[in-house]
């Protein structure tokens, strides 16, 4: 069975139902709107470029076993293994990868979200607060007093 998805900029993609269902959001929408499947499903936060990439990911991973939400704190669980395809897939520029993370988050494609966050962690690793701010174009909204206080509170992490 096929499902049509519409990106925020109006492009329509037709994919197999089980591919689309890697997105928790779409899966839930399909359950609710079973009768009304002629209309494309609108994805208001996802542009066509990102959606194409998300679909590419879902096509490749369509037969993967579903991972349960690892909300629980368990450090010894092995992280999801990255295969060669995934490694190839993550060779995109930073901007694209962050857009993909946001797309995966809004569509709730869990494995892609985890993959993207590991990639982002690798970039942020060992960066100074200023470098991170530059990367994400975030304004420093701390007062100098607050800054000092946090510095003082977190000094133990340098041990």
């Amino acid at each position, binding site marked *: 069975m096929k499902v049509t998805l519409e990106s925020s900029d109006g492009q329509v993609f037709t994919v197999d139902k089980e591919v689309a269902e890697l997105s928790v959001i779409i899966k839930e929408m399909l359950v609710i709107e079973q009768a009304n499947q002629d209309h494309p499903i609108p994805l208001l936060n996802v542009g066509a470029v990102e959606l194409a990439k998300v679909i590419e990911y879902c096509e490749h991973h369509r037969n993967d076993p579903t991972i349960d939400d690892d909300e629980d704190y*368990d450090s*010894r669980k092995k992280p999801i293994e990255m295969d060669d395809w995934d490694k190839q897939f993550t060779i995109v520029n930073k901007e694209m990868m962050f857009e993909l*993370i946001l797309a995966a988050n809004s569509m709730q494609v869990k494995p892609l979200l985890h993959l993207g966050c590991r990639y982002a*962690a690798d970039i942020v690793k060992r*960066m100074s607060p200023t470098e991170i*701010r530059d*990367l994400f*174009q975030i304004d420093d909204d701390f007062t100098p007093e607050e800054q000092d206080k946090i510095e003082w509170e977190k000094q133990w992490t340098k041990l």
Partner: protein
Amino acid sequence: MMSQDTTLPPEVLILIGRSLRQSDIASCVLVSRSWRSALEPLLWSRVSLVYEKADSILFPHPDAVLKNINWILSLDLSRVVDPMHMQTMAPLLHNQLVHLSVAQYTAEVDQILVQNCASLRSFTCCYSFVLPKTSSTAELSSQLATAFWSRITELKHLDTLHLKAAVVYQEHVERFFDICRRLWSLTLEKGSIVTMNPPTKEPFLKMRRLELRENSVVIHSQLQFISQCPHLDQLAWISFQDAHVTSLLFHMTTQSEPCRIRSLDFTGTPMTDRELSTILSCVPNLQCLIVPRSLFAELCCEQVVNFLDDTIEELDLKGCPAMTKHLVQILLLICKRLKRFQTGLFSPSVFLAPSTNEIPTKQQLKLFRVEPLMFMTPE
């Protein structure tokens, strides 16, 4: 550069933070207010207190700890010397700790255990039974052990237990095995256990990781215990004093079912080439072998090259006296999946500059290019 409207939502920041170390999370907390509010709980979720020598070193500052105490999930108190700090913290921790690591089983630790009995999954205690200096009678020791083991039994979700210098008397044996049935990982170091031979044939189905280091317990009962862990993945074993490795050999070679163990660590139990190669012949799925100072020579090399070449990923042969450059090259050449390799005898330059008649193979070159740091230099 990111466009202005693509700030990462808090749930994504937390996911990213989970793959970071505490020092990296600390940088993220200083980025902005929204980053701070998303990541501060994660920053304080794993805390290791270093309170040594009469307040001269206090990390993190006790006030900061108390302020963030609700976020703590994993707490290492093993380097807290002054009990005063524990006394202020202990009453504040309620069913939140998942990991706890302590130096001694004290009254404060007992209080923390009671208050976190529904959340704790992992408990480490370095000196489980240190008696008060004033009265060290055998009776008191037994009382303390009884209190200790009943407390451990109450930890409903415990699956990882690491004890140094633990004592299991006859009256605690049953309780001890009940606890073991729930465990995923058990480490016993320098303990004294009356027997490890379980009274029933009921297997320890959950046990995946077992470390038995220099425990004073009859070796045959240890082997009996190992043989009742059908799903064992990792085994580390050091014999106590002069108990010999022969019985381990006998045990491994006479098992009816093929052994599933993927990681073997015999640090501190040096073996001969023949002994070790016999053990290697019983573990067809081995991925990691740690055998410093053993006589890893032709027989072992032959086993690895012929039967483990598809599985072995890590070899630690530090201080193995029979290691030659020739054997090392054979191992590197044949073992396709090798990711870590330690010999301690050679520096990486030995491999990088082979003599003229030994041209480095593709396999060797690949290994160097991908991960040049995996060849550890001698300590």
